[in-house]
């Protein structure tokens, strides 16, 4: 009886938490403790119809970009994350990291309750009341002893309400709030301060440009706001009435971003500034500068092309070529500040780039200082170093750590770990047992973004809301609530905060935003609208800026390198793991890295010549040594890197952080010296030279594609720009057929994939894992080519007449849903067949596992369940109830998200109409930041997909086999050397 009552209560509480979008009445009282058991219901609470998903707008916090997301909730469990079309940042798309946020939420290695080692050797679980009491006592004890200012709250860049709360709290306690971002982009701020007097990071408008020149800005991967800039890039670089924008990328290694460039310019590390000035000089010299170079002629004249070419290893003709195009193809844009090329002269480089933009007359055109990024407000690396020193001096008594992992992300030379040992009381709010948290005395696990209230303002124009999509999976508590309740218990703080829950605090602070918003109606409607839209977005007028004359007198130098080794060492941030944060998510570990297709490990990129010199081959191990440390990792021989440079991806090499991250790969940050950018004081990532030596170890390089060329199979095809302009005719294949062609009546589902837009980021792959319950299998199984991915991004290095000598092509390959499917007739039991809507159906229950279908699949896109794969609890909570979980012995493959198709058809049927074009999106299409994938009905001649399928560039892969695929690829456009 009482049990029932209890259960009933819990169901209601749950309702209160998730019912938010339907009104604030319920929300106003959603202060009750989180509940763990959510489903199954005895009686479904009103508002929840079993089988019908609820969608909640929220904000992604996997990286500082702050994309808007829509989280799909089924029976109280978040099962899918998708981009929020309302968000001005990512407008509907998402990246692999964002998709994988769910595996953070359901991570089996989360901290499941408060832990403390105050009166125990090891960390022991304890209740929230105890935990908060313990913290309160510590604070009061500290204040009793009269010490103030010895409390530091170290967090990532938390803007918005939580940021304010922490500031106030620290203010009240006399402590300090330090916001630490691994990639704080300080040089960008500093450079803008020097050149324009604005210490801010602007927003860029790549989509408006016709010519993009990037100095190591890896905007497809991690630079500032990857999804947004990838989308802009695909608009700029995609085919618009037979013309395409041109993108030139300058970097010592061909990163994923560089791989999407029309030209990759391999520059000598640390000399980007010189190159930029050289180009600017060319422009001014040749009189192509609208402002004639302003007062900078003198400065620029010190950088004649021949000298620059010598210093940068970039051929003179290339420099003048770029100069010509940069000034002629308007509007153009030069960007820089990628983490991996941030050297000791980073600020100078960026000033030089600003100068380049200035002489070409781009300032104000494609760079917008009206709307600046909030990452600008993160504290500087100086603050971190001083914090560490005061920690070492024992001046810090309580250190709060929130959503940062400095032990892992700070260079070892800074000795953060040792310093941490000197802090008597360390409190971590992390929900994961990472390298920093495991050294804490008290762990107060925070809710993940998907479980908690909050807001985040990634830039001035965006106030994004974070709302709980489900009640907490474990016994965790939102840090905001912890702070408030602790403040309530600390004597002197009584009455400091009127609110008792962070939700109230959040609403109060939004009252100010509401006040600022003109014509938003009463607060409740404003609040409700904001919740539904995922936040409050305003338009800011762009600000005109002018270059300060000071730059004319600036000295520009090359970057300085420490270390005796012969190789420049690049540690580059990962679009899968960011700064290591993503490493505990199996989806990201199993997502093949675009260039190497490597998974579940680390590697060092080595130029073929260098490899020969070092006597190593693909798969051998190299020992890299810098004064700061040694790492041993596997060789990936890659023509896309300078012979005098080696590079390792950041993110692996965790010594803790859960079963999926622990003891996997190496952490290149350990190799880096404590060098900083001279002008901004920001950390210099590219500042060391290493020596490399072969070690007597070699093993299989675990990757998903073992070939780099197409072996003349013409899978990923390209068309030259000149051909495109001339206009070629779409080869329709009408080969004589033994049987008459197949007829469809209302629907023939099909897809068009634009290879000119696809950047190979793999967010479609992860989205597919999430939507279709695809099992992750681990390194050992991938080594046996048993990965279960339904989409694979094929990556080919093609001979080319560009400067690099090769061009990278990406091609997403999934089931082609063939009209004459080779897999169908060979199945003895009709387990796979052709449905009336052109789908190549796969009936798991009927499959006996002869695997002939896979043998006969021209595209080899079928995957077989060699075992019954398991999702460790609670990862299995994420499984999509609409999709069968496959068991051992059956074949599986891309279904074109048939569950989504059927859902849309049901809706249409209820409304007595046909499914209209673009009414729904399949998972990969939905996720794609480049909007390269279009899905729809080929029978509808007006649909986008039909149009694209008949595009001049359209072709079917391996059309000669006459499989009549449902997927049309649009050829990549190659730009010949002009």
């Amino acid at each position: 009886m009482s049990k029932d009552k209890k259960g009933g209560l819990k169901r209601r509480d749950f309702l209160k938490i998730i019912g938010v979008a339907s009104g604030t009445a319920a929300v106003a009282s959603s202060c009750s403790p989180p509940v763990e058991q959510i489903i199954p219901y005895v009686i479904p609470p009103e508002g929840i119809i079993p089988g019908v998903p609820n969608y909640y707008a929220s904000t992604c916090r996997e990286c500082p970009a702050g994309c808007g997301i829509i989280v799909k909730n089924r029976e109280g469990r978040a099962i899918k994350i998708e981009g929020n079309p309302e968000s001005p940042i990512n407008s509907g798309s998402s990246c692999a990291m964002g998709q994988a946020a769910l595996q953070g939420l359901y991570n089996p290695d989360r901290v499941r309750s408060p832990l403390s080692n105050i009166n125990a050797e090891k960390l022991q679980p304890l209740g929230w009341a105890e935990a908060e009491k313990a913290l309160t006592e510590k604070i009061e004890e500290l204040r009793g002893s009269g010490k103030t200012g010895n409390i530091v709250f170290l967090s990532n860049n938390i803007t918005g309400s939580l940021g304010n709360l922490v500031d106030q709290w620290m203010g009240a306690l006399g402590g300090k709030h330090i916001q630490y971002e691994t990639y704080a982009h300080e040089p960008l701020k500093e450079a803008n301060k020097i050149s324009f007097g604005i210490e801010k990071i602007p927003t860029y408008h790549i989509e408006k440009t016709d010519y993009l020149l990037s100095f190591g800005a890896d905007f497809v991967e991690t630079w500032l706001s990857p999804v947004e800039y990838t989308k802009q890039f695909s608009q700029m670089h995609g085919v618009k009435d037979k013309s395409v924008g041109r993108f030139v990328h300058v970097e010592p290694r061909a990163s994923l971003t560089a791989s999407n460039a029309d030209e990759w310019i391999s520059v000598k590390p640390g000399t980007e500034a010189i190159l930029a000035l050289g180009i600017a000089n060319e422009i001014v010299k040749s009189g192509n500068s609208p402002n004639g170079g302003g007062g900078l002629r003198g400065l620029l004249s010190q950088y004649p092309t021949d000298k620059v070419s010598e210093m940068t290893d970039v051929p003179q003709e290339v420099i003048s070529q770029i100069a010509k195009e940069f000034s002629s193809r308007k509007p153009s844009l030069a960007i820089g500040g990628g983490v991996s090329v941030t050297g000791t002269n980073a600020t100078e480089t960026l000033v030089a780039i600003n100068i380049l933009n200035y002489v070409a007359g781009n300032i104000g055109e494609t760079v917008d200082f009206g709307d600046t990024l909030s990452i600008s407000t993160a504290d500087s690396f100086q603050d971190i170093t001083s914090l560490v020193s005061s920690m070492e001096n024992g001046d810090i008594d309580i250190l709060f750590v929130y959503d940062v992992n400095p032990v892992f992300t700070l260079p070892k030379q800074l000795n953060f770990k040792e310093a941490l040992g000197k802090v008597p009381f360390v409190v971590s709010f992390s929900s994961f047992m990472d390298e920093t948290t495991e050294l804490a005395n008290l762990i107060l696990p925070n809710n993940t973004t998907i479980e908690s209230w909050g807001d985040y303002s990634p830039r001035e124009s965006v106030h994004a809301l974070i709302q709980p999509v489900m009640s907490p999976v474990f016994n965790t508590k939102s840090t905001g609530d912890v702070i408030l309740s602790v403040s309530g218990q600390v004597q002197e703080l009584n009455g400091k905060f009127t609110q008792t829950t962070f939700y109230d605090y959040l609403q109060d602070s939004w009252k100010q935003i509401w006040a600022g918003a003109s014509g938003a109606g009463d607060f409740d409607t404003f609040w409700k609208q904001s919740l539904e839209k995922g936040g409050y977005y305003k338009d800011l007028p762009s600000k005109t800026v002018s270059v300060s004359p000071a730059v004319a007198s600036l000295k520009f130098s090359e970057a300085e390198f420490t270390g005796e080794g012969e190789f420049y060492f690049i540690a580059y941030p990962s679009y899968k793991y960011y700064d290591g944060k993503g490493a505990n998510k199996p989806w990201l570990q199993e997502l093949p890295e675009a260039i190497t297709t490597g998974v579940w490990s680390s590697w060092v990129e080595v130029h073929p010549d260098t490899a020969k010199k070092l006597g190593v081959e693909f798969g051998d191990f190299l020992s890299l040594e810098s004064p700061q440390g040694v790492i041993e990792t596997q060789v990936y021989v890659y023509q896309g890197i300078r012979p005098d440079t080696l590079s390792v991806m950041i993110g692996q090499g965790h010594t803790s952080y859960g079963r999926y991250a622990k003891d996997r790969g190496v952490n290149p940050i350990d190799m880096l010296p404590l060098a900083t950018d001279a002008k901004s004081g920001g950390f210099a990532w590219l500042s060391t030279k290493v020596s490399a030596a072969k070690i007597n170890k070699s093993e299989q390089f675990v990757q998903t594609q073992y070939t780099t060329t197409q072996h003349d199979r013409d899978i990923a095809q390209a068309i030259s720009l000149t051909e495109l302009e001339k206009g070629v005719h779409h080869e329709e294949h009408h080969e004589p057929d033994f049987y008459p062609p197949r007829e469809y009546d209302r629907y023939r589902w099909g897809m068009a994939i634009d290879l000119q837009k696809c950047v190979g980021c793999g967010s479609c792959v992860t989205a597919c894992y999430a939507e279709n319950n695809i099992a992750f299998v681990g390194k050992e199984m991938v080594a046996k080519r048993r990965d279960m991915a339904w989409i694979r991004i094929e990556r080919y290095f093609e001979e080319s007449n560009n400067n690099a000598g090769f061009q990278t092509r990406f091609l997403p390959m999934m089931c082609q849903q063939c009209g004459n499917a080779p897999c169908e007739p060979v199945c003895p039991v009709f387990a796979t067949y052709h449905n009336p809507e052109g789908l190549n159906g796969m009936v798991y229950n009927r499959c006996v596992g002869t695997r002939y279908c896979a043998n006969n699949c021209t595209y080899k896109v079928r995957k077989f369940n060699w075992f019954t794969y398991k999702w460790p609890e609670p990862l299995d909570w994420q499984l999509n109830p609409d999709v069968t979980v496959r068991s051992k012995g059956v074949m599986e493959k891309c279904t074109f998200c048939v569950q989504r198709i059927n859902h849309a058809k049901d809706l249409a049927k209820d409304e007595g109409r046909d499914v209209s074009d673009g009414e729904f999106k399949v998972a990969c299409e939905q996720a794609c930041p480049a909007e390269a994938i279009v899905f729809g009905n080929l029978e509808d001649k007006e649909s986008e997909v039909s149009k694209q399928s008949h595009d001049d560039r359209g072709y079917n892969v391996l059309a000669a086999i006459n499989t009549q695929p449902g997927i049309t690829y649009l050829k990549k456009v190659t730009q010949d050397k002009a």
Partner: protein
Amino acid sequence: MSDKQGVLGVFTYLDETLNAVKKLRDAGFKNLRVFSPFPNHEIEEVMDEPESIVRFFTLGGAMLGAACGVGFTVLMSSDWPISVSAKPIVSLPPFMVIIFELTILMGALATLLGLLINSRLRRNVPTTMYDTRFSEDKFGVMITCEKENVKDAEEILTSQGAEDIKFDGV
């Protein structure tokens, strides 16, 4: 029929056996039976039995098999019409294989049946008037006749060099 009697002569040599048969037939003896350890053409000629009808079993079986083949494939495909690879539901080329195999199968089984029925192979042990030496190296001639003719038969057999003669009251 107690007035009938069987006489069995055992021979070593084939020619003697055959002569005996001829003689007996001249003497007007009907339903003779010859035993031999292996099939032999001379015996067949002399005995001059009508052509075996096993072949009709074979033909019938084969035709039935073909019919089943067509039936199976066409009917079953139509009963669960599933479209694969844009091929018609009933497309004969692939079905020919099934039809062929079933033709062979049933033809063969019918032949077996024909053999068992026609050569009366449905006992567990040889009935009377059999000598185990027939499966080794001896030939045999068996006559079933009226009691009064037994003597003549015996004479002919011995005259033709039968090593051994057996009688049996049928």
